[in-house]
């Protein structure tokens, strides 16, 4: 089975998902 990092799309998708999760966390910390 291929790792998500084995494609550029998988790498970018993971990066965007992590960005969304961390942005939500940051909003909680700011509130």
């Amino acid at each position, binding site marked *: 089975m291929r790792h998500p990092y084995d494609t550029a799309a998988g*790498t970018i998708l993971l990066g965007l998902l992590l960005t969304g999760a961390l942005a939500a966390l*940051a909003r909680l910390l*700011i509130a």
Partner: protein
Amino acid sequence: MDSLSIDLLLRWGHFIAGVIWVGHNYSSVIQRPNWRALNAADLIDDQSPRFQALLHREHGTFRWASVVAWSAGMLMLWRYGWLMGAITLQGTLAPIGIGMYIGTLMMANVWLVLWPHQQKVLGLKPASIAERVRCSRITHLSSRTNTMLSIPLLFFMAAGAHGGLLAG
């Protein structure tokens, strides 16, 4: 979408596009500072002194650039009086604090994971062919981890300056 949110998204896109685009330019500059025609030996012998020197130069530049980038970021936080707030993720300093932690992780990944394995892959440290192949998988994953982490890193660098979507 409000003006600050648009500004944040533009900055994020600008950083990512800038890194992808200009990163390739700098890669070329570091590998080939002066144009010289390749000869057959350059393409078929990865142990040639010229090739080895190029690899040392390229990887040394990237590793030390990570130290400069990290140090400059920490210095800015310290000068603004934001360092403790960023470390403890306090209030509006939480976004740049998260960026600081991601950047620290990326630098540690370069020095502690990628580089020790890359030295074997490139033949800078002696290793069997099987070991070099094994290490090449690790360096690929390590490199892609930093590519992936650069996406939220750049987002929080952009968000840290103005808050934008996050403080709205």
